């Protein structure tokens, strides 16, 4: 490989992320690879529910929109796309992309990575890794179980030469590590390189969160032009060290501070960040800002990967009902509190797993830390877990009834009910999981690996 660095861009950081930053990256970013991370823990369980209702569904609902906006540009510029938009049905997603490409008049090959769906392997006695280690039998009906596959499942897909690689559940950093490992032909037992590539992936996986999103605060942490936040790329060298950057003229900023915040985001053990590929030590990572909007990343160390895959299991967790109502002006806080007390009293018998907050005082932090100021407005919020939809609906009904039965001047009531899919995790021996790759071309499908 004559190439000295590989440029990997992050075109999406969650399922509903903005569309146009990826288009800017594909057209002006001089990328080799564009990664679209769109799949959270909960997202795949919900996707599985859609697949149960319709066997042709279950992939990301924005697939056509997102990929459609990118395909012609990416193909023209030789940018290969890697995405987990396959969600609960990667093969159907791949076929949809082939169909979309035909419509757009673009010739593409799509490689689909599957094998993450391990629902059939679960047994009720299997213990979860959550705090109590309770067996699966203690949870509600299981709807999904997906192993977090790693770079070793994605590299064979890239080796087919496909323009688009579609996966289901894979570890987010692996989506970025795989193209780098493929481009440089790394051994998948080269733990230090894999750790460095994992750090790069971790920094990129939430896209705008390293370019000033989830960071800005007026005054102390100013970020320019957030309405046009640019998404990041990283130039990675053969050792796995990289330089973060973004397209000139886009909004946002990449600084030592934005990079530091993202480096530790969701990291529960900085000395041992476990992915399917490696156990990475983040404590040895060095970050340095050289020129504006560039941060160099180096120095992670790696240890051998674990013998197990983490599996995310979705189960039916009943329903949550919510209701809200606003008060404003004199005694707004007191009227909102009274409203909450009334609802609690009304639901005490039937819906006891209830939470009452006042938005404007203590809803987000669950405390006001003794803050002395009375708000001008206060919005009472009631939320409860209930085993059935009917019981959950009671919450909104009781809140709405405050219009005519509650404190003075209550208005703007709203209510909702949602089915909840809980998520628990367990570990499964690697040998029990069989990742595979299917190559889709306009007129044929072949098992590639």
């Amino acid at each position: 490989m004559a190439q000295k660095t590989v440029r990997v861009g992050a075109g999406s950081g969650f399922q509903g992320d903005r569309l146009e930053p990826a288009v800017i990256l594909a057209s002006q970013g001089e990328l080799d690879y564009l990664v679209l991370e769109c799949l959270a823990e909960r997202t795949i369980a919900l996707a599985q529910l859609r697949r149960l209702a319709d066997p042709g569904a279950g992939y990301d609902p924005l697939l056509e929109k997102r990929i459609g906006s990118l395909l012609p540009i990416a193909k023209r510029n030789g940018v290969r796309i890697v995405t987990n938009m396959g969600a609960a049905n990667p093969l159907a997603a791949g076929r949809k992309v082939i169909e979309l490409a035909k419509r757009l008049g673009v010739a593409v090959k799509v490689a689909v990575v599957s094998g993450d769906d391990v629902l059939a392997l679960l047994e009720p006695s299997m213990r979860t890794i959550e705090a109590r280690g309770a067996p699966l039998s203690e949870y509600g009906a299981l709807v999904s179980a997906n192993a977090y596959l790693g770079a070793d499942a994605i590299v064979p897909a890239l080796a087919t030469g496909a323009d688009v690689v579609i996966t289901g559940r894979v570890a987010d950093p692996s989506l970025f590590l795989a193209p780098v490992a493929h481009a440089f032909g790394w051994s998948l037992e080269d733990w230090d390189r894999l750790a460095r590539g994992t750090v790069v992936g971790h920094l990129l996986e939430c896209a705008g969160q390293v370019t000033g999103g989830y960071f800005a605060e007026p005054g102390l942490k100013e970020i320019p032009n957030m309405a046009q936040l640019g998404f990041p790329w990283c130039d990675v060298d053969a050792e796995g060290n990289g330089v973060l950057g973004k397209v000139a003229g886009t909004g946002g900023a990449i600084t030592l501070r934005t990079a530091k915040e993202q480096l530790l985001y969701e990291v529960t053990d900085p000395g041992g960040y476990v992915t399917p590929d490696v156990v990475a030590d983040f404590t040895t990572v060095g970050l340095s800002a050289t020129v504006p909007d560039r941060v160099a990343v180096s120095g992670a160390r790696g240890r051998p990967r674990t013998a197990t895959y983490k599996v995310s299991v979705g189960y039916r967790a009943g329903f949550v009902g919510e209701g809200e109502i606003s008060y404003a002006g004199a005694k707004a806080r007191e009227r909102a509190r009274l409203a909450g007390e009334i609802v609690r009293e009304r639901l005490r018998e039937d819906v006891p797993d209830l939470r009452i907050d006042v938005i404007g005082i203590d809803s987000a932090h669950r405390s006001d830390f003794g803050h002395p100021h009375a708000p001008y407005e206060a919005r009472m919020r009631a939320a409860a877990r209930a085993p059935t939809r009917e019981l959950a609906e009671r919450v909104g009904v009781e809140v709405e009834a405050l219009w005519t039965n509650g404190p003075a001047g209550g208005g703007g009531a709203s209510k909702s009910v949602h089915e909840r899919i809980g998520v628990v995790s367990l570990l499964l021996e690697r040998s029990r999981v069989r990742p595979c790759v299917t190559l889709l071309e306009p007129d044929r499908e072949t098992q590639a690996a």
Partner: protein
Amino acid sequence: MKRKLHEIAHARAGDKGDTLTLALFPYRDEDYELLREQVTAEAVKKHLAHAVQGEVRRYELPGLCALQFVCERALDTGVTTSLVIDPHGKTLSYALLELSIEA
């Protein structure tokens, strides 16, 4: 003099299941030691007692001038089943920054 962490540090919250992560960074590297001495795991556990039901572990990252707090059972059973208006705990970085220290 008592000062809120918000005046001297910035923070980012993250979630994994029912676990909350809070990363804390001084604006000035020389304040790292101050944070290391006073923003202990115990202090954070006490400050966030209304939200964090489980253990709080602290990791020191002197190379980055950062402290990482890992708070167990902090998200009311987890993102997908929580009743809290912010089930991910994304706003809780600013709850940490409400903590006052001698500085």
